[in-house]
């Protein structure tokens, strides 16, 4: 029995090496001078941050980082607003066509986003929005899945709360903002985390909708940098760390909410 338990620990720890070593290896390599990249046992004393300052000074990595932050923040806030209100409407109000509209939102989730590539590109080109912040944010402010999550969440809030608030004389917006929003922190956390993550890591849409390196987000910038400077592994991997670290830190802070969100997506 005891032996078996030890074996379980060994396997579990080995697999955590599998998931973590690539990151450690990348950090280690990003701190080496270029000529040491394939010398696998470079002593720690030779390590420094010069590849980071190199890519920040000579390439627009700082600018790409700013773009990534601006776009992910705008899209996240927009989604939070749009999806929460819509989910609340579906859960709490009776209005004509409610059933049909909700079905349409659900059905549309089955259609893969790639169907939208051509028509959205054409629409944005007509509007002159290719390679602009509007183009990278405005089409992505709503998510049927998050509306579904919000609706499920609000359906679970007891009716009595609303009635009590009514007696206190709160109007419709008052009830929503003063009663429901403070209660829905887990819902808001799930939405923020997954929308932000999706946008921070997004590749397909930004690679289609940006043409100048002024508008690149970090993933697009890193890909294009790798395309031209693939021999400079220390700099390339410094870019990798720059793209990865912020998301890992956010994950470590909110790991409980991440796990809850993922678990519920599987059960539903």
């Amino acid at each position, binding site marked *: 029995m005891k032996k078996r338990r030890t074996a379980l620990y060994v396997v579990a720890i080995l697999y955590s090496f599998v*998931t973590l070593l*690539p990151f450690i*290896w990348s950090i280690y390599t990003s701190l080496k001078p270029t000529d040491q990249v394939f010398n696998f046992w470079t002593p720690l004393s030779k390590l420094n941050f010069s590849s980071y300052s190199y890519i920040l000074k000579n390439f627009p990595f700082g600018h790409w980082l700013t773009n990534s932050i601006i776009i992910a923040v705008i899209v996240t806030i927009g989604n939070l607003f749009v999806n929460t209100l819509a989910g609340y409407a579906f859960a709490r109000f009776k209005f*004509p066509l409610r059933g049909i509209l909700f079905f349409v939102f659900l059905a549309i989730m089955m259609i893969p986003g790639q169907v939208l*590539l051509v028509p959205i590109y054409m629409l944005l080109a007509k509007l002159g929005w290719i390679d602009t912040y509007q183009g990278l944010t405005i089409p992505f402010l709503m998510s049927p899945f998050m509306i579904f999550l919000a609706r499920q969440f609000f359906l679970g809030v007891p009716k009595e709360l609303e009635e009590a608030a009514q007696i206190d004389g709160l109007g419709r917006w008052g009830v929503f903002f003063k009663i429901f929003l403070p209660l829905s922190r887990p819902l808001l956390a799930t939405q923020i985390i997954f929308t932000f993550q999706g946008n921070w890591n997004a590749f*397909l849409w930004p690679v*289609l909708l940006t043409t100048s390196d002024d508008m690149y987000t970090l993933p697009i910038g890193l890909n294009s940098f790798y395309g031209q400077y693939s021999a400079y592994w220390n700099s390339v991997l410094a870019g990798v760390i720059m*793209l990865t670290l912020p998301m890992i830190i956010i994950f470590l802070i909110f790991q409980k909410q991440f796990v809850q969100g*993922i*678990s519920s997506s599987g059960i539903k």
Partner: protein
Amino acid sequence: MNAKRPSLFRNKFEQAVAGYIFLAPALVALLVFLIGPIFYAFYISFFHFSFLDPQNAKFIGFSNYIHLFQDKEFLRALGNTSLYTLGVVPVQTALALGLALIVNNIRGKTFFRVAYYIPTVTSTVAVSVMFMFIFSPDGILNKFLANFGIHGPNYFNSPKFALPAIMLMAIWSSVGQFMIIYLAGLQDIPEDVYEAAELDGARGWRLLWHVTIPLLRRTTFLNVVMSMIGTFQVFDQVYVVSGGNGGPLNSTLSVVLDIFNKGFKTMQMGYASAMAFVLFAIILIFTLIQNFFLGREDK
């Protein structure tokens, strides 16, 4: 003054107006950025249509769809994507299940969950670049293999090894996510089921094989379908690894990469839209299978 406070839902009309006000932003987005574009894409999939030359759009009926199944490149992409799905889904699911069973039985659950999930929050571009370094001809993997006298290939430049290497990357990045779903599934199995099984003399492997795994059927099914839908849409990794062309020798060309290149490199936008609808049909079949089985189980 008034005996009764005004009801929050004074009348039906007022409630309907409020409902639509709350729903308005989502409805506008739905119409402008989803439903409208989807119908438009369906419409132009019956046209010979180039964005650069919209005047010369020509209605050609089902020709795009028929041509697709004679298009060697598309068939190759479909084959690669199927192979990728067939390779990734079973390994990833089995690994996720195994790790969940292990982590569920030891201390330090939080640490392992975090460690296993970190690859999932990492950008696909970052993952691809990290693995290209590890898999590079003089990289650490080949150096390691050299200890055993194995001369490792230049993985991403080899038509034989490029796709399997990308599959490995995909498995590495998503196992954590499916493991967490399995952990949640394990938590849903009531204690008394195990107690009853143990009374009947089931232990160890038998308990696992005859009780736990069958009870996780639903979770397994969900994981498999979710993972199939995801893997069939693979794009980022193959784009980064092949520099956007699906090479070497189309060995990493995926369906979505083919859509991307046909639509925006050679500007055959009607044709690319037809491809996207074929992808939609495939994913729809996966979803219908899921609903069919899960629906039957619920009865």
